[in-house]
């Protein structure tokens, strides 16, 4: 199988890999780079569990070809904690009991991060809209929405 060289930044670290031609980004992140935080749920763009940020935009790693990621910055839930301290969204998801089985959580957190990066004080409706591409099969949406609102509040308190 043809191999193609790809270089990008993953959670702040330079990565250079030879990937299978036609491989999706999620395969490369999980199988080659060991970042198992993006989950492969549907591989159809329906569930959002594979959500990552590419150059600051929320994208689905199951529908992105790794070869198209040359020179980009990729951020995953696996890279949000810094120096042993959880990201405020991760902390809020724990505090609000927003993860049951946890499969959708990394995607939910990335979708929430994309929201808070552009809108630090979202309304409940903004949160619902931002998470609308992410499915939780435990149907624990209410605690998830609460967690995002809590994280937004704690961010704005820290900023004040």
């Amino acid at each position, binding site marked *: 199988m043809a191999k193609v060289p790809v270089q990008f930044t993953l959670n702040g670290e330079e990565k250079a890999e030879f990937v299978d*031609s036609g491989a999706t980004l999620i395969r490369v992140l999980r199988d080659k780079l060991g970042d198992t935080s993006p989950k492969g749920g549907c591989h159809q763009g329906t569930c959002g569990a594979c959500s990552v940020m590419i150059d600051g935009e929320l994208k689905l790693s199951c529908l992105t070809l790794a070869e198209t990621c040359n020179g980009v910055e990729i951020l995953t839930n696996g890279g949000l904690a810094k120096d042993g301290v959880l990201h405020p969204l991760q902390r809020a998801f724990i505090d609000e009991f927003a993860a049951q089985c946890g499969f959708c959580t990394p995607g939910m957190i990335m*979708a929430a991060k994309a929201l808070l990066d552009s809108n630090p004080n979202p309304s409940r409706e903004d949160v*619902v809209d931002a998470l609308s591409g992410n499915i939780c099969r435990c149907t624990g949406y209410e605690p998830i929405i609460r967690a995002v609102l809590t994280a937004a509040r704690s961010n704005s308190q820290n900023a004040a």
Partner: protein
Amino acid sequence: MPLALKTYPTIAEAGSALKDGGARYIGGGTLVIRSTNEGDVSFSTYVRSIDPVLSAIKVEAGRATLGASVTMSAVARHPGLSAIARAAKAVGGPAIRNMATVGGNLFAPAPYGDFAVALLALDATVHTTTGDLGIDEFLAGRDGKVVASVSFDVPSAEKFRFAKVSRIKPKGVSVLSIAVVLDADANGKVEKARIALGCMADRPIRARAAEKALAGATLREEDVAPAVAAIGEGIQPLTDAIASAWYRAEVLPVHFRRLLLE
């Protein structure tokens, strides 16, 4: 089987490369990579172009030109396109909107392609590698075409109406979608209407009988009744996991009436 990705500097070169058997043009990947992931082995090569022109939005003198690679989010947030932002926001969730393209939406099979429904109502011109086509003509024979851009007159917010009906709010697959562009005189009498429907065939279609019935009407309950009665003429709705053809046909007049009277 390995899948090769071939990248070309221009859309014309990508278009030529598509003539080789087993090649598919890839825009945002939300349709093509999805097919691959579902086991479609009918192609072995992805073809794309990274010409920056394809990602450009131009709004000049009331006319908008959207490159084929322009994403739904880019349309939704563009200040010159606020009148039609609703149609771009109707596509997918935030991540899909950051990937899904204007060009791809023109090829999306029902129940997808809600933005193309809007483009059909807007009477867009589709600029392909083999010439410019009116969108009606383009949609009728879209297979094998390579789109560089689309252009249309940007309507005022009052002229453009759009509804997407789905079972899950705020985001779900279409039961149906309706786009209407209304030209009305000073007294609110409709002079001309262009009505496009999604999920009422394998691709967006015009509701010509309703367009005729709406001409000369004002947007009042009793006046729109003939158009509402005619909205289902010629439709062949699809049956899928979201809704049956029967259900889609039953609720179409209900949503069309609401859209006219909103």
